[in-house]
C-alpha cells in the first residue's frame, strides 16, 4: 500500500508554542494523480507543505515520500520533487534564464533543461530579461518552471494559479493534467480557486484548523452534499416513517422535511418508502452543490 503512495503521513503534528498548526494528519496521496489540498486561510496547508519538504520538523508523526521515510539527513529523497511554496523564490537581479541556471547547477542537470523549462512555461522570449521587470504572471510561470526543472515525479504546488490570467490558468490546468496522466507525475496542489480544483483534481483533502476533515475522490464528497428536500401531504407522519426506517431527518414541518442522504439511489429509496406507506409525495429536490458550497459547509460546520 505504501509503495503506491507518493505521499503518506502518519500522525503528522506540528505545534508552534501553544498553537497546533497541523494535528495528527493522515495524508494518503496516490501516485500519478492530482491531489488538491484545500482549506481556509490559516488551516495549516502551507505548514503541511513545508513539513513535506523538510523545511519544518514535525513535532510528532512521520512522513513518507515515495515509500521512503523523510528525515533531515536524507536530502537525496528530495531529488525527484519539485516545489513552489507560496510566492516563487526568484532573484530579481538575475534574468529568467539565470534564475533557472542557478538551480540547474546545484542539481547538476544537463544545460538543455533550462531552455526546456523556459519553453514549457512559455518564457523563451523573455528568458534574457531580468526578473524584476517581469509581471506577476511571468514570475509565477518562472516559479513553475523552477519546480519542473528537474523533471520531478512529485510536484508540490502552493497556489500555482496565483497571478495568472484566465488563459494562463487554463494552460496550467492542461499542463498539470498532462503531467499527471501522461507522465505519471504526482501533483499535490493547494489552492483557493475551488472551481479550478474541481476541474483538475482526482482526489481532494480538506483541512481546517490543522485537522483533515475529508480525503478521497471528488465523487465521495456526495455524502456531504445538501440534504433531500421532500414535500409530502403529511409531513409529520412522513418524518416518523423515515426515522423508523433508519433515515436521518434533519428538519420537518407540516408538509416539508429534509432528509440526510449519501447517494442518488437514496432519493429513490426515500420516495419508495413513502409511497409504499400510502403517503403522497409532491416534490423531491436535492440542490446540486458545487465544491465551493461543500467546502464552505464543511469548514464552517
Amino acid at each position, binding site marked *: 500500500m505504501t509503495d503506491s503512495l507518493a505521499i503518506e503521513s502518519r500522525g503528522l503534528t506540528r505545534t508552534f508554542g501553544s498553537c497546533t498548526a497541523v494535528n495528527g494528519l493522515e495524508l494518503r496521496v496516490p501516485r500519478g494523480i492530482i491531489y488538491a489540498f484545500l482549506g481556509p486561510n490559516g488551516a495549516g496547508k502551507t505548514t503541511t507543505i513545508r513539513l513535506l519538504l523538510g*523545511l519544518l520538523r514535525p513535532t510528532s508523526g512521520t512522513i513518507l515520500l515515495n515509500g521512503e521515510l523523510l528525515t533531515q539527513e536524507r536530502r537525496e529523497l528530495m531529488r525527484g520533487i519539485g516545489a513552489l511554496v507560496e510566492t516563487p523564490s*526568484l*532573484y530579481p537581479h*538575475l534574468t529568467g534564464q539565470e534564475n533557472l541556471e542557478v538551480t540547474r547547477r*546545484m*542539481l547538476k542537470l544537463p544545460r538543455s533543461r533550462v531552455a526546456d523549462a523556459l519553453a514549457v512555461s512559455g518564457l523563451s522570449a523573455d528568458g534574457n530579461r531580468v526578473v524584476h521587470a517581469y509581471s506577476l504572471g511571468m514570475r509565477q510561470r518562472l516559479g513553475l518552471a523552477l519546480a519542473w526543472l528537474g523533471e520531478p515525479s512529485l510536484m508540490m504546488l502552493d497556489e500555482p494559479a496565483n497571478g495568472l490570467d484566465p488563459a494562463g490558468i487554463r494552460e496550467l490546468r492542461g499542463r498539470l493534467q498532462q503531467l499527471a496522466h501522461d507522465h505519471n507525475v504526482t501533483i499535490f496542489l493547494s489552492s483557493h480557486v475551488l472551481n479550478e480544483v474541481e476541474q483538475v483534481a482526482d482526489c481532494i483533502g480538506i483541512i481546517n484548523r490543522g485537522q483533515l476533515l475529508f480525503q478521497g475522490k471528488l465523487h465521495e464528497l456526495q455524502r456531504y452534499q445538501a440534504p433531500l428536500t421532500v414535500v409530502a401531504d403529511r409531513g409529520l407522519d412522513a418524518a416518523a416513517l423515515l426515522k423508523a426506517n433508519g433515515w436521518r431527518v434533519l428538519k420537518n414541518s407540516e408538509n416539508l422535511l429534509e432528509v440526510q442522504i449519501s447517494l442518488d439511489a437514496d432519493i429513490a429509496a426515500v420516495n419508495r418508502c413513502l409511497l409504499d406507506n400510502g403517503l403522497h409525495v409532491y416534490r423531491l429536490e436535492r440542490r446540486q452543490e458545487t465544491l465551493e458550497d461543500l467546502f464552505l459547509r464543511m469548514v464552517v460546520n
Partner: protein
Amino acid sequence: MKDLFQVLAAEGLKLRRTLALRLAIWCPTVIVLLVFGIYAGRSEKLGDPDLLTGFAQLTLTIWTIILFPLYAALIAALVAAVEHQNEGWKHLLALPVDRSTIFVAKWIAGIGLLLLSSLVLATGVVATAEALRLMKPTWSSSPLPSVMIFRGILLSSCAAGFLFSIQMWISLRWRSFLPGIVVAVIALALMFVAIPRGIALFGSLFPWSLPAMAMAPHNPYRPIAVGLGLLGGVLVGAVACWHLSRREFC
C-alpha cells in the same frame, strides 16, 4: 560536501549585478583614490624619501582600521540578503543538497568578495603610487614596498576570518541588516577605546582588531593575530554552519 563545487558555481552566478560585487571593487578603489587625491595635492618640494611608503601606509590604515570591520559586516549582510530578501531559503533548503554545503558555499562566496576587495586595494595602492611617481618627478626616488603591501594585505585578510565568520553567522541568522551592523559598530567603538590605551593583548585577541594587528609589519603580535584570525574563522564558521543547517526556515 561532494556538491560544493556546483553550489559554489551557483553562488557565483547569484552575485552577478549585486551591490556586494560592486562594493568589493568600488570601496577599496574609492579609498585608494581618496588618499591619492590627498597626496597628489602635496607640494613637489617635499623630499621625504619615505613619501610613497607613507602613502601606502595611510591607505592601508584607513582601510584596515576604520573601514574594514564595517565593510566586512556589510558584505556579510549583502551576501545573506540575496536569500533573505527573495524568500530564497524555502527553495534552496528544499533541494536535494546537503544544507551544510549550502552554508559553506555562502561563507566562501563572502570570503571571495573580501579577497577580491583586498586584491583591488593592493593593486590600486601600487598603481596609484606609480602614478604619483610619474606626476611628481622629485618623488621618483621614493621606494614603494610592493611586497610589504601585498603581504600586509594578505595577512590582514587572513586575520579577518574570525570577525567575518561572526558577521556571516549573524547575517544568515537574522533577516535584518541591523544586528550585524550594530555588532560591527560596537566592536569598532571597543577597538578605538582599548587599543589606544595600550591594551595590546586585547588588541591581539579581539576579532575586529586582528586585521589591523596583522597589517603592521613590525608588530610582535602579528603571528598571533593571523593565527587566531584563521583558526577562529574556521571554528566559528564550522559551528555556525552546523547551527544554521539545523535551523528551521519558516
